[in-house]
């Protein structure tokens, strides 16, 4: 009987040691997997970067074949393009007028920013930071004041939203989470706002992603996107109003056209490009700004 207990004790010790070894191996395997997926993402990013650069250099070759392409286009129906992963710069809300002339002068822009915060971050983030209502307005006021302070300290430098330090520590943590975004929960704030001192252009709806459009058109965003990118040559405010009515999107207001435009302009390409790549096996994703 005594011997049996000794044997069991030894076997227990051995199984414990085996478990410790196995755990170590699993951890190393996970680290290796992460390394491989990160390397893959870097490669993908460099490939995406090179593709972008080559697109620019091969412009002359494209012009030569454009006649042939036009003929082909006539014969085939126009397909709705898949929206880009990142909302482009031209389709972001510019904070500059708010910083220059204040809230009273830009009430619509201010309200749209508040709507943006409510739509993407209220459910998933705000409840963790405060029980009070109207956190979006408190955050907006503190945020805009901090950007103003940063601008007054370095008036010649461009505003880098990631570097803005808020006075309230809770709001700073909230801001950090909003900037980072969370996969499939809430997007990064950087995709929807910018501080551009040079441009006075309105927000371009033609290049906006459906996620951006949802701030203005709610549930009708996808339908509006399809209408803008469909076969119609001209899309008017009335057409969009009709779509919103069909989809019962109550938030639509014609006043929006003070800050948004339906014109199909080509915009100047910015000096940087943001790339977002994901490894499908590990679901790790990286977002990087690169020079053009």
């Amino acid at each position: 009987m005594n011997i049996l207990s000794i044997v069991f004790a030894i076997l227990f010790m051995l199984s414990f040691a085996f478990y410790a070894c196995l755990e170590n191996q699993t951890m190393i395997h996970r680290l290796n997997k992460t390394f491989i997926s990160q390397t893959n993402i870097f490669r993908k990013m460099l490939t995406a970067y090179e593709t972008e650069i080559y697109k620019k250099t091969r412009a002359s070759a494209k012009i030569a074949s454009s006649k042939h392409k036009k003929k082909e286009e006539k014969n085939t129906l126009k397909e709705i393009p898949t929206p880009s992963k990142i909302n482009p710069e031209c389709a972001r809300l510019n904070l500059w007028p708010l910083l220059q002339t204040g809230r009273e002068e830009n009430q619509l822009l201010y309200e749209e920013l508040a709507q943006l915060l409510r739509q993407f971050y209220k459910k998933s983030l705000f409840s963790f930071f405060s029980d009070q209502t109207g956190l979006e307005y408190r955050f907006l006021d503190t945020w805009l004041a901090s950007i103003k302070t940063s601008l007054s300290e370095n008036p010649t430098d461009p505003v880098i939203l990631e570097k803005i330090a808020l006075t309230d520590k809770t709001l700073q943590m909230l801001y950090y989470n909003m900037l980072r975004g969370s996969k499939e929960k809430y997007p990064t704030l950087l995709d929807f706002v910018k501080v551009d001192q040079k441009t006075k252009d309105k927000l371009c709806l033609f290049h906006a992603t459906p996620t951006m459009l949802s701030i203005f058109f709610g549930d009708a965003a996808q339908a509006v996107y399809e209408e803008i990118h469909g076969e119609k040559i001209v899309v008017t405010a009335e057409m969009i109003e009709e779509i919103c009515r069909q989809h019962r999107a109550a938030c639509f207001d014609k006043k929006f056209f003070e800050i948004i435009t339906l014109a199909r302009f080509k915009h100047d390409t910015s000096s940087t490009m943001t790339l977002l790549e994901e490894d499908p096996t590990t679901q790790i994703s990286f977002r990087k700004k690169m020079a053009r």
Partner: protein
Amino acid sequence: MLIGLGLLTILLSLLFSFFTSSIKMDQKLQRAQYALLERQHLMNRLQSIFSSCVPPGPLADSCSLYTKKMQEEAPLNLITLFDQGIDPDPAFSGPCLARIYLNVAKQLCLAIWPEERHKENKTVREEILLQNVSSFEFRFLYRNAQNAIGWEKKWPKKEKRPVPSLIELDLWIGIEEQEAPNLTLSFILPSQEPKITYKQKNQL
């Protein structure tokens, strides 16, 4: 009873000897894996920094990647302005400065600090990239005056000098009196320098 005890002793001694040898093997493997993980971490860290180099423009007034001699007899340090991304500390978010150097304890280190405009913030983040490094050297892909592509060991700070598209890092680990490096790592950067123009066949 005695036979049973004898058999049990044999069984247990066999089990223990197997277990001891497997532990020894495991320790060896762990050491190798630790070294591998350390190198993987070094590669990933440097690749992520080099691929986020801020190009000369509104955010970087001059060259954003350059080498600098900090101490006599120490290898050239590499300094770069890179986009750190989003960090809980706003000073360490966005463009930050990084320095790759060898410390007195023979460790290859990386120091990160906020860029110049945040002068009030004196905090520096330091991390050890690789242990037991006796020396290191960077090599940068460049085009010389004769239009030939080659490697340059120094990349001094020059006004609006572009970032090279390829950097190699040679590492001497352990023994110092060795001519060839023990480890060479290559890093591809998102840059168009040096530009290589290919000619069509009929133009040759």
